[in-house]
């Protein structure tokens, strides 16, 4: 009962933020200087312009225009391009590459960072620990577009073992798909690897000082078992929170990396839309990105409650 109630509260908070975010975007779009209708049809008559303005909701106040946009979204009408065509089909092709990029990156980052973090916490202060932290600190300071460009140049062009850019959907062959994804994912993963490793290390060093580790030791368990079963688990929640937080940066990073590696995802579409002054499409894109970001964060939030009973009892 309590659980359902807290979930409901959580859900309404998320909905509120989502509504706020999309409303914000719709207000922003309204701030465009000049007459958008002229842009759509430069030779339109006064009557045509008026009907266009009505169609776009420009003759309404903020709230009713937003409501119009929102109800259209719910009906599956995601707007149209000023230069022709609907947004929906483009969205359908642009979302998968970006999502793939982001999820592969999270998977790679976690699979690299967890062992690194655990080992550096266990070997705290040793040469391995210092080497790892210095390397990651320096690598993560290189801007991601820099890493992307350099990787694409060195591995893609100079050495040539991997294609320097491009994208193929999974349906066109798994191997090709992954070969093309290696460099962009590697580029994107460096920053979260560094963040996760550092966090996990700090968190585990803290946890290793806890009494329950001593108790586990005094039971005669092996170091390995204690690290993985007793220390990693409570540290996981921090890792998950951090994974959720880094999502924002990752989305932004993915947009830029798409441009560099010529992946036809949301980033490329956003750049294209700005080049073509497709403000209606931009509104939809931004709303979708916010939707994804917020949803992901809420899922992580619920998952943390499952993994860590401490937060559960705190909330109850």
């Amino acid at each position, binding site marked *: 009962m309590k659980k359902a109630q807290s979930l409901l509260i959580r859900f309404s908070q998320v909905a509120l933020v989502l509504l706020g975010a999309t409303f914000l975007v719709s207000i922003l779009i309204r701030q465009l200087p000049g007459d958008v209708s002229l842009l759509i049809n430069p030779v339109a008559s006064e009557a045509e312009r008026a009907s266009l303005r009505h169609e776009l909701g420009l003759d309404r106040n903020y709230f009713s225009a937003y409501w119009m946009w929102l109800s259209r979204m719910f009906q599956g009408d995601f707007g149209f391009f000023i230069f022709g065509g609907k947004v929906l089909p483009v969205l359908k092709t642009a979302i998968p590459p970006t999502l793939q990029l982001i999820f592969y990156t999270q998977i790679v980052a976690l699979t690299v960072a967890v062992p690194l973090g655990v080992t550096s916490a266990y070997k705290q202060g040793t040469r391995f620990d210092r080497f790892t932290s210095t390397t990651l600190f320096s690598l993560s300071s290189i801007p991601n577009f820099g890493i992307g460009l350099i990787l694409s140049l060195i591995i893609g062009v100079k050495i040539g073992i991997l294609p320097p850019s491009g994208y193929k959907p999974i349906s066109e062959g798994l191997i090709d798909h992954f070969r093309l994804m290696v460099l962009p994912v590697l580029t994107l993963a460096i920053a979260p690897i560094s963040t996760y490793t550092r966090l996990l290390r700090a968190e585990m060093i803290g946890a290793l000082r806890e009494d329950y580790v001593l*108790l586990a*030791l*005094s039971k005669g*368990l092996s170091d390995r078992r204690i690290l993985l079963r007793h220390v990693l688990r409570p540290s996981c929640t921090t890792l998950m929170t951090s994974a959720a937080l880094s999502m924002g940066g990752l989305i932004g990073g993915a947009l830029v990396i798409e441009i560099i590696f010529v992946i036809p995802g949301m980033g490329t579409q956003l750049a294209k839309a700005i080049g073509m002054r497709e403000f209606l499409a931009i509104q939809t894109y931004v709303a979708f990105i916010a939707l994804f970001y917020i949803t992901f964060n809420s899922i992580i939030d619920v998952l943390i409650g499952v993994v860590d*009973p401490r937060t559960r009892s705190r909330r109850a």
Partner: protein
Amino acid sequence: MSEILKLSDFSVSFDTPRGDLHAVRGVDLSIAKGESIGIVGESGSGKTVLSRATMGLMPSTATCTGTVEFKGAVISNLSRAEVRKNWGTGMAMVFQDPMTSLNPVRRIGSQLMEALIVRLGMSKDQARARSVELLERVRIPDPYAAMKKYPGELSGGMRQRIVIAIAIACTPELLFADEPTTALDVTVQAQVLELLAELRQEFNMAMILVTHDLGVVAGQTDRVIVMYAGQIVEAASTTDLFRNMKMPYTEALMKSIPRMDQSSGQRLRVITGRLPDPTTPEPGCSFAPRCEYATDKCRTEKPPLVTTQTGHQYRCFFPIGGSL
């Protein structure tokens, strides 16, 4: 009686930025099978470090010297992996604070069964059955429900019982109880102590009860060791110690216990001053600066540990009641 644990000239020091910190200095101690001894002292007197270091549960910043013999075999020079073989099955520990000594994100059942499965090679079902027995033994109501709970859902007393259950799970021959009742409510303290005494009888365990409370050791132990600044300052059988204490420090500890038979409004006696800085040892008796009987001799010369015919040991030039 054969000895289960023997410490000789055992010292522990920590490498700190301010220099070596001598937490335990030259302790000799032996415990017979099934015997129960109490280690008493203020916070910082080295009693917790002594018990943990004996087991080998020390961080790498600590250096231990001297020898520790467990069941006739020297264990102080063994690698951690070899010492570990004794943990749980040979020696086990009950920690001070049950709020922090249980892993907050794992269920009671899995924490209890873990040792049984890993150390005794039980199957999951066997371990589960044994765990329920253990929980029943430490008087947890509804053990089946408790197995599925997280530590955060239980009270302090319950948790300490579970810690005890975990400690005795592999039937150790020696149990360290490191201030097992300090963090508990007064009403629960007696129950936990009673439980420990019962279990000790039942499993014929030797027990080292570490506490700052002379009242706790009084009814529980065969012998009492009083520690001050990392050294044993007095050791005697419990009855002998309470009837015939030799050390001014022990006396001061005793006087600082509030007593029911004192008239109200009377001031509690406190021991003035603080423990000496463990990084810079005193030239003389370490208790001298705080001792009301101290003389110049006490401040410049170190008193040796004297043993009387009755086996009463003390470290004082001017013991209470005169030297025998």
